[in-house]
């Protein structure tokens, strides 16, 4: 059943199989992922992921920090979507405390999280296109992402690991021109996204490289736990923002884009459409940001009553879940983070078999992993 990729012959090309070690220093393994490829010529016969190069023991650290102290750590997991990580964590602890953030805070959280989703997808698009050999989209994507990061910077002073939210709401009130900035970005973005469409969507090389590559059926996705755009590209119309609304998502109209074939091209289309939907959510949200407090009264020292909670949100990569056990002290007894990248990465083997080495690169890109989150 299980085949160990390392057991094959080590000769250069004499044997039928060649083991190619991809990473951890490789341009397109998106960090320190290491994949051992078992090849027949250039055709992939099996893969084995070696991960953990970025393991920092976040879950262990959590047991030795107070609830508030741990909040910045989650930003370092999926470091291209720090805001989403923070949202998940803060909401989970709020649930553990049986508290709730005030409406104003929830709306601002939603806006920032959706902007973060766009930023994360933009980075994904740029690097994914780069993996497939299109150099230019990366810079266009970075240009737009920069606008989002500027909004973050103006809001909380940080660009990447923002720590934008606090348990119970927000620490900072939205700055004066916040709505204006978001609106301007959203207005521009419609035009910008058309540029990526022009460069890629109809490009026959792009279609040739992504169509029927890394196909995952809906059953496979669910069995392998793959979530997020990967799941939706396989045709499952399911999104936690709709299924179990959190933050202020229940107030807004948006569509869940789905694919039909579950291949790399569908995942591309789904993510592109998700960016458009996120933009629509942002536009709806800035229309009406309710006035009021931004921080619920949760106290300075958080001592949640003993018990446990599981809460998950739809991060840009998929289901981002937090399972927190409290023993009634100021420190969590156990924090378990369900990382979408980690679980989605499991599907790599299934997706890559039978394809060529070039496709492996495309498939790693299309799963959209962030190694900080895979390894934690």
């Amino acid at each position, binding site marked *: 059943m299980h085949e160990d990729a390392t057991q094959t012959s080590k*000769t*250069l*090309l*004499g*044997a039928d199989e060649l083991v190619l070690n991809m990473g951890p220093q490789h341009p397109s393994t998106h960090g320190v992922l290491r994949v051992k490829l078992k090849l*027949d010529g250039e*055709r992939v*016969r099996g893969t084995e992921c070696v991960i953990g190069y970025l393991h920092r023991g976040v879950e262990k650290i959590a047991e030795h920090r107070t609830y508030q102290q741990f909040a910045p750590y989650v930003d370092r997991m999926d470091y291209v979507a720090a805001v989403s990580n923070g949202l998940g964590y803060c909401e989970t602890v709020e649930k553990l405390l049986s508290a709730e953030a005030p409406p104003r805070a929830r709306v601002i959280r939603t806006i920032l999280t959706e902007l973060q989703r766009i930023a994360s997808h933009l980075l994904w698009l740029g690097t994914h296109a780069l993996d497939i050999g299109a150099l230019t989209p990366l810079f266009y994507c970075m240009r737009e992402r920069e606008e989002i990061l500027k909004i973050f910077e103006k809001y909380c002073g940080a660009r990447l690991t923002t720590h934008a939210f606090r348990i119970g709401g927000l620490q900072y009130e939205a700055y004066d021109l916040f709505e204006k900035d978001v609106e301007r970005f959203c207005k521009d973005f419609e035009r910008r996204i058309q540029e990526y469409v022009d460069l890629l969507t109809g490009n026959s090389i792009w279609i040739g490289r992504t169509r029927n590559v890394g196909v995952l059926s809906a059953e496979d996705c669910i069995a392998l736990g793959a979530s997020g755009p990967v799941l939706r590209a396989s045709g499952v119309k399911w999104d936690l923002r709709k299924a179990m609304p959190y933050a202020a998502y229940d107030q807004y109209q948006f569509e869940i884009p789905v694919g039909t074939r579950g291949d790399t091209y569908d995942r591309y289309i789904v993510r592109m459409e998700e960016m458009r939907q996120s933009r629509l959510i942002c536009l709806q949200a800035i229309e009406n940001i309710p006035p009021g407090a931004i921080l619920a009264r949760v106290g300075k020292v958080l001592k949640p009553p003993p018990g446990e909670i599981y809460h998950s949100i739809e991060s840009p990569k998929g289901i981002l879940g937090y399972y927190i056990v409290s023993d009634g002290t100021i420190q969590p007894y156990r924090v378990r983070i369900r990382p979408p990248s980690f679980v989605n990465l499991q599907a790599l083997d299934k997706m890559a078999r*039978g394809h060529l080495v070039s496709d492996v690169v495309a498939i790693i890109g299309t799963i959209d992993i962030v190694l900080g989150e895979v390894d934690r």
Partner: protein
Amino acid sequence: MLDKVIFFFFAGVAILSAALMVTRRNAMHSAVFLITTLLATAGIFLQLRAEFLFVAQIILYVSGIMVLFLFVIMLVRLDVALNQIQFARQKWVALIVTVTLAIQVGILLWSARKLPGDGVLFSAAPAEMLQPNTETLANSLFSAYLLPFEIASVLLLVAMVGAVVMAKKRTTLP
């Protein structure tokens, strides 16, 4: 004089690298020396003012056939070949062939009473004054030697079809 120098230079390189090609244990090194031999031969063609043959030698032999050689060498297991006895039992046959060849060449040289390289006088004729040998070659191939040429083509075609048929059997996907 210069022609002689050039000829002996290329001939020396060709013979030396041919000898090295035979004696190298590493197949890749042998291939490199074979390439050198072929290039040196091409150089002799150039010295004889056979520019077309020179280019044909380079395009066909060096960058066509030798590339396929390298392809094969890369795909086989060199370590196995290294452990095998290099000079097999044909030692005596090889010696006889070599001696015969040497005698033939000797007779040829003796009967012509000319050293190699003396064939063409040195002259720096501009290209326009030389008879363009592309046309000459084409004319002789398509008139005097038409039949051998066509026979060779048919043979090659047969070989090609045969190769395709043989390869086709094994191209089912894993």
